[in-house]
């Protein structure tokens, strides 16, 4: 098969490694990290545009290197080619190998912040247009200096506290080690970040099987949703995460 993979760049290393071992020809388009910050409908528009650009005469399916991602894939329509999406809430669940492991970890570890190679090395890598919109809309990503320059000393400090105060609720940083890392430097960076923030640190072993199965065409219904042309993605907010529904 010839498959087109549209993926968040936060999964760059994992997707490249999986594609290298796929029995199929998989062409990848990476989109900027952090689209979920734009909100569900804006993110969906970006993904829809990318999916609709794929030439149906050249490919047999469009694979999405995304999860539900704050409803960023909700409403995504299959027009000419089937869309294949892993059933997961977010990229952390993908990196952990599935939604069940993520769910149980999440429930037993309140206040965990996650890191992976992509989250570490692609930290500020949003394209400028996207970054500008996200910053202006949410205030996230501004430094204290930025905020003071824009809103004055007092209001700038207040906003910085408002945007970053939630971090007080976190207690732990978990680094997801996939085994693809060239050395221990990523884990070390994550460990240093945990120390800097005063959080506990843990390394969790990642699991790349969802990535491998996605690009291998092993789309078992329990772990993947295949959306045929004329159907779209609907979030279910239950254990299945997403389902397909016919476009009216």
């Amino acid at each position: 098969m010839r498959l087109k993979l549209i993926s968040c760049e936060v999964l760059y290393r994992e997707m490249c490694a999986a594609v290298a071992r796929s029995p199929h020809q998989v062409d990848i388009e990476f989109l900027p990290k952090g689209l979920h910050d734009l909100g569900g409908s804006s993110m969906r528009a970006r993904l829809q545009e990318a999916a609709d650009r794929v030439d149906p005469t050249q490919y047999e399916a469009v694979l999405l290197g995304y999860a539900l991602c704050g409803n960023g894939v909700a409403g995504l329509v299959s027009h000419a080619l089937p869309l294949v999406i892993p059933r997961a809430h977010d990229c952390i669940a993908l990196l952990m190998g599935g939604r069940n492991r993520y769910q149980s970890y999440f429930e037993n570890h309140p206040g965990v912040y996650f890191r992976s190679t992509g989250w570490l090395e692609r930290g500020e890598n949003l394209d400028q247009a996207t970054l500008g919109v996200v910053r202006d809309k949410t205030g996230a990503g501004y430094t204290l200096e930025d905020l003071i320059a824009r809103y004055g000393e007092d209001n700038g400090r207040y906003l910085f506290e408002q945007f970053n105060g939630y971090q007080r609720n976190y207690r732990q940083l978990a680094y997801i080690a996939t085994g693809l890392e060239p050395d221990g430097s990523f884990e070390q960076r994550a460990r240093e970040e945990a120390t800097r923030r005063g959080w506990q640190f843990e390394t969790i072993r990642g699991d790349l099987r969802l990535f491998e199965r996605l690009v291998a065409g092993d789309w078992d219904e329990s772990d993947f949703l295949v959306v045929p042309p004329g159907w779209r993605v609907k979030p279910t907010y239950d254990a299945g995460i997403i389902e397909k529904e016919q476009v009216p």
Partner: protein
Amino acid sequence: MSDLYEAILNGNAPAAAEAARKALEGGTAALELVQGHMVPAMDEVGRRFECEDYFVPELLLAARAMKAALALIRPHLASSGAQPAGRVVIGTVKGDLHDIGKNIVASMLEGGGFEITDLGADVAPEKFVDAVRAHRANLVCLSALLTVTMSSMKTTIEALTAAGLRGQAKIMVGGAPVTQRFADEIGADGYGENAAVAVALARKLVTAGAPA
């Protein structure tokens, strides 16, 4: 419009407090300051947010200015016997630690004349139940920022229903991944797409609901 209105719109907390102080000293009734100046100011802030003239930082600063004024006005409101627009219990649902959106909504509702009990983030369903009882709340606001915690909204609503509190309190839900469709599915009474619409929605729900 008035200095108070302008100060809130500009997110200028010291100016808002000063304007409120002067108005109170000049004999303006506390309720008139809220209804005639602060509520219209927050409505205008909401309008500007809707048309993307204002963004989250402006919303936060307007709410901050409003709270600065409200700190001076509130004692006068209480002594005049004015009733709050409603009694609200608000929190981010269990498992979810995000609180910026919830804080903005709480501030806007406070400025809109509501009495707020803010339970914070990662709030268990039974805590909502207890707080609604203890504060005789007639409105519950639930926030979630993660699709993985949206199911906690459902369990919270189920807990409020099981506790027999649905006749007493309306429930509104919001947060980035939350949709009207989801709100309908879990049986919420209202859904606010953003903080700007929260006050109008809250007023509507409280008016439609049982008397406080």
